[in-house]
């Protein structure tokens, strides 16, 4: 499909939208909590890919995961009313599950929720504040009253736990 985008195939864009729009919209809506704003972010993410399909490098990550990361970053920028801080070409991630299918995504989502459920409330909260609210570690430390080092450790350990769950 990305090859199709590179050659300007609008049908490839439609196919790509049908496959990944639910991921993109869900992430944007979770961050922004507003359907209109989420739809705007969805439009921006797909249009950016249309304008610059070479920004996605299939050798360095799966399209579904890449779109999820791009969407989350754009939604946080929108939430914080700031200009985009990261160019989409700078978002490079290691290969992770593509999750193009609904069933595959549902199974993976269940696994993620399972891992989150094993975390302590403090760790889960730190990870969610950083990811879904775009808070810096300093802001999280101020809000929770926890030391900065503790916040850092919790966030990294949370991400590593997720990685390990998908390596099994």
């Amino acid at each position, binding site marked *: 499909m990305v090859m199709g985008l590179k*050659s300007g195939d609008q049908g490839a864009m439609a196919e790509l939208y049908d496959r990944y729009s639910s991921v993109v919209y869900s992430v944007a809506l*979770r961050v922004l909590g507003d359907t209109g704003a989420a*739809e705007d972010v969805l439009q921006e993410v797909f249009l950016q890919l249309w304008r610059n399909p070479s920004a996605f490098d299939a050798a360095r990550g799966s399209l579904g995961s890449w779109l999820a990361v791009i969407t989350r970053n754009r939604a946080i920028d929108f939430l914080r009313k700031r200009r985009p801080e990261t160019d989409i070409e700078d978002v490079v991630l290691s290969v992770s599950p593509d999750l193009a299918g609904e069933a595959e995504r549902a199974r993976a989502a269940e696994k993620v929720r399972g891992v989150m459920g094993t975390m302590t409330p403090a760790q889960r909260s730190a990870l969610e504040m950083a990811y879904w609210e775009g808070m810096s570690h300093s802001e999280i430390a101020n809000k929770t009253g926890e030391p900065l080092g503790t916040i850092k450790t919790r966030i990294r350990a949370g991400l590593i736990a997720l990685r390990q769950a998908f390596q099994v």
Partner: protein
Amino acid sequence: MSEHQQYAEDLALHALDALRGEERTKLELHLATCASCRLELEQLRGDTALLALSAAGPRAPQRARQRLLEAVAREPRLAATSAGLSAEVGRAAGKDDVRPRSWWGWLGWAATAAVVVFALSLWRENSALKQTVASASSQAAQSRREMEELRRIAAPILEPEAQKVTLVAAKSPPQPQGKAFYLRSRGTLVFLASNMPALPPQKAYELWLIPTSGAPIPAGVFKPDAHGSGSVVNPPLPAGTEAKAFAITVENEAGSGAPTTPVLMIGAGE
């Protein structure tokens, strides 16, 4: 504690864009020169993508699809270089500070490092930090100059519009050919292929670095264009790895951690 361990937690925060101020600046300086930490950052970004999966929600309204496709139809694809496209994206995003971009990923890191070093030089308060920043600034500037020179030299090889011609013995059919240029000391690799046969959908060629000991290391995936040409530029590689040879196999387009099909092409150092 090693230098990489020191940055481990900051890398996780950076993957979430949750690192600010001086800590972010110092980490970006380190990333400009550390391939293994850049690789770890990419893995952590992959981990953050998993978090996105817990955001199950309603589908986007049907009008969103129509709106997108109408917008796409109003923007027919322009034939442009990567740099041109990037600039287009920057303008669309409302940026005033559109930066020239390139396929040379770590040139971006070096440029970023140069900028943050300059900023730090304004804010530094203690002499020890001042010394570190000055040194890093010099290294980053030197690195940027080298990369700009390399990019200028390599442009006829890698720019999409460059005409590529392979000469073979008269009356010989074109043969698949690959050339790897590997600089072990910097962990940088450029691979160029020509006359590569077309592949089935979902398949791609995967380049492997064969180390002097141990298993083959994935060194990038590519699909040949309509003319059979392809390239891999600066894939993530473990620092300092000595290459005994390079090889090509056919793998799924997402790439594989180890070769799963027979070697199609192989070459040792010249």
